[in-house]
């Protein structure tokens, strides 16, 4: 607005003036920094990145990449926006609940910065599609929440020779790093080099364990800065891993990463993973419980589970004890009367602590933990244990059912309870 009226004011760029006037003004505060300048801004504009996941990590990543002017941003997410996402997935809105996350995020990004090209893809990356979908991107950005996808994205990045910016956050902790590709001619370790195996029980998910919105925000912001540094050609010469812990001193611990592992299945000299990712084995990274495709509920052996409606008729009966396996803090948020709270970790470390009657029914939020509790108690009560064996044998053929308590759990947990029995039960 301060220039003479003869100056072109439209959005067209020319070789002498490669950005539009809108862009000069919009990006001015970052372009004037040393190491950025017009060449840096043009590198961002020419770049194309793939962001997989538009959730807790994806939202801050996408927001800053759009704001900073990354030319083409492709978003992969097959999920829909739900109300319980909104405390942390800050590009989505209450009005857009039920909309595709990829589309919702792209709307927010376009309104933040119409100069960038956003391509929403309402699909998940699969072993059979990964290479084709990610081939055109300069950087692959892993904002997913499942171990299987994390390893798949790493393997795809290794095969394509592209850097992977990968982050994770849960509860009050997070970590992020640049994996693969090379820094100043030195090959970086890939995700598998650093994390060759999954620790059993370490695959916690935000919906089960909980997460601070600010924690995904800080990790996502850290990831976005790694992407920008890579695009500007200003990446850390020695690869670093950042570990963040709310309440930690220091808040972020940054460590030197080791070089690539010669034993790595993805990037080592004897790598077994090839371009045929559909042939790679990702089963070891899948959750151990079997989930029904239609209901999303855990499948169990016949007779081991009870539906919410049948369960309602059993509560409060003298010979039935109902144990809610949620953590104390969740039990305090909402609970069903006549239930006893014993958190899962206590049950698992000592199943026989559960007071038994003729029938024990376990209950949890979604029907997963309750199943673990039930199988732990069943195992502890097997006819081998001295107490129950003695009685069962002494009483003869008809008696074992009475001597060994029947152990079941509620299919679908409190979600099913709220859906089928008591709609006023607060879901959280």
């Amino acid at each position, binding site marked *: 607005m301060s220039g003479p009226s003869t100056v072109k004011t439209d959005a067209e760029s020319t070789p002498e003036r490669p950005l539009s006037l809108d862009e000069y003004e919009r990006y001015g505060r970052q372009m004037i920094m040393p190491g950025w300048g017009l060449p840096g801004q043009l590198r961002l504009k020419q770049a194309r990145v793939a962001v997989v996941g538009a959730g807790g990590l994806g939202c801050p990543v996408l927001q800053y990449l759009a704001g900073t002017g990354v030319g083409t941003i492709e978003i992969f997410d097959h999920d829909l926006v739900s109300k319980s996402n909104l405390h942390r997935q800050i590009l989505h809105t209450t009005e857009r609940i039920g909309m595709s996350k990829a589309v919702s995020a792209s709307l927010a990004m376009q309104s933040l910065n119409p100069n960038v090209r956003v391509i929403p893809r309402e699909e998940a990356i699969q072993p059979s599609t990964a290479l084709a979908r990610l081939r055109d991107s300069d950087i692959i950005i892993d904002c997913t929440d499942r171990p299987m996808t994390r390893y798949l994205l790493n393997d795809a990045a290794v095969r394509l020779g592209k850097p992977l910016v990968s982050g994770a956050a849960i509860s009050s*902790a997070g970590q992020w790093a640049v994996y693969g590709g090379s820094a100043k001619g030195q090959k970086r370790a890939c995700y598998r080099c650093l994390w060759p195996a999954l620790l059993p*029980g370490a695959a916690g998910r935000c919906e089960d364990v909980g997460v601070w919105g600010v924690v995904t925000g800080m990790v996502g912001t850290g990831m976005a800065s790694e992407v920008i540094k890579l695009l500007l050609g200003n990446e850390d010469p020695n690869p670093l891993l950042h570990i963040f812990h709310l309440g930690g001193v220091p808040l972020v611990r940054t460590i030197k990463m080791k070089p690539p592992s010669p034993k790595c299945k993805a990037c080592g000299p004897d790598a077994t993973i090839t371009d045929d990712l559909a042939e790679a084995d990702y089963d070891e990274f899948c959750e151990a419980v079997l989930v029904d495709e239609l209901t999303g509920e855990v499948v169990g052996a016949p007779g081991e589970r009870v539906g919410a409606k049948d369960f309602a008729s059993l509560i409060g009966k003298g010979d039935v004890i109902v144990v809610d396996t949620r953590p104390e*803090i969740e039990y305090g948020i909402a609970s069903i009367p006549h239930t006893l709270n014993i958190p899962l970790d206590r049950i698992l470390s000592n199943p026989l602590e559960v007071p038994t009657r003729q029938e024990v029914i376990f209950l949890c939020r979604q029907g997963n933990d309750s199943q673990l509790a039930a199988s732990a108690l069943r195992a502890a009560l097997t006819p081998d244990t001295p107490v129950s064996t003695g009685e069962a044998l002494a009483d003869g053929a008809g008696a074992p059912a009475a001597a060994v308590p029947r152990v079941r759990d509620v299919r679908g947990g409190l979600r099913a309870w709220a859906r089928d029995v008591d709609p006023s039960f607060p879901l959280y």
Partner: protein
Amino acid sequence: MSARTEEPELPSNGLGYQPRIPSPKPLGYTSTPGPDTLEIRLEFGGGLHLLFSQQPRHTIHVPRHVPSSSPPKPSDMRYLIRWLKGNLLSEREEMFGEGDGVRPGILVLINDADWELEGELEYELRDRDEVVFISTLHGG
């Protein structure tokens, strides 16, 4: 700046675990600083603190030399891991250790560097070393 011993006043203490009431005494070891011991600061992240009395941070004192070694062998990471299993681990050992080392999937840092850069099990401990054990996270 406050010291690292200070815990924030948050209901969940900000660390992703519930404080046990009262804060439990670490199991089975006496923390006796002296000329023959090394002070080692430990931190467990990514959920591993659950295996160590639910405490993410510990300060321990281990013998400067491996007990009854002759000639006296300086304490190393191999000894520290054995010591942790015997003195500090409060839960299932198989979740932490494998052979002399730790399970794959646990990253070990010595003074903020991957222990593979420092000699892994052979690294000789020094007074006030900081050793961090973390497992990978998957949420997002």
